[in-house]
């Protein structure tokens, strides 16, 4: 088992996302999935712990004031288009990363069905659904305001 278990190595398999065996065409789908996996993992690694620490622990315990503890400050910051874009990118990219990791975790646990096309549709389709739901929530929850 390799220590570096990433799509760059996994995707070479014919069953990998976008992986094409003996193909001379540019593996655009492989590039797309690699982009989503790597950037989702990187973004989650850089920013998710501080979100969890502040919004999930310090705020609810009352140690610090946090924007999402009060409706007015939360809706105020959520109205900012940059914040909406940031949240969309964070949630969407992260879920493509999670989908890929969890699917291959099932493969490693000996679930051959996780390699199948229906499994790919379920996992990556799930990430697409979460992305669409995020877009819908961000566009409908709090109106966008500049300033």
């Amino acid at each position: 088992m390799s220590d570096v278990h990433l799509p760059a190595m996994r995707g070479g398999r014919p069953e990998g996302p976008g992986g094409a065996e003996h193909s001379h065409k540019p593996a655009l789908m492989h590039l797309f999935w690699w982009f989503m996996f790597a950037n989702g993992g990187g973004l989650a690694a850089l920013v998710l712990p501080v979100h969890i620490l502040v919004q999930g622990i310090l705020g609810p315990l009352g140690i610090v004031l946090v924007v999402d503890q009060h409706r007015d400050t939360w809706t105020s910051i959520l109205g900012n288009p940059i914040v909406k874009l940031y949240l969309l990118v964070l949630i969407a990219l992260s879920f493509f990363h999670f989908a890929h990791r969890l699917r291959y975790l099932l493969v490693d646990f000996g679930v051959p069905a996780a390699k199948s096309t229906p499994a790919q549709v379920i996992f990556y389709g799930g990430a697409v659904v979460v992305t669409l739901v995020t877009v819908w929530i961000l566009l409908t929850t709090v109106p966008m305001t500049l300033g």
Partner: protein
Amino acid sequence: MPPGWWLRKRHYFLYVVREFTALPMALWLLWLLYDIKSAGSAGFQPPRSIGFVVFSAVCLVFAMYHSYTFLKLAGVIIHLKVMDRTVPPRVIVLTMFGLWALASIVIGAVLIGFAR
């Protein structure tokens, strides 16, 4: 592979833990999505229960492990050349950990600084 292969060596176990980190992080982000949705509804309730804090603490442990393992891999994945000289992997890894610290400070400051 036989069942329980991942329990036979510490290295395998840590590998599975690393891959599993995706699940608690996904659950926490789904909660964040719910928190965003509730901001615009009449049923807005800020998270203050001890159960939520415990859930977040568990997710934080997994998220930190994801950050540590993922950013440590940057030295293997990213290959940079500056002035025809290859940047040592150690420098790349240190830069990524520095970015992690910087991003944490900036986002933490925004989340706390904009609160009233």
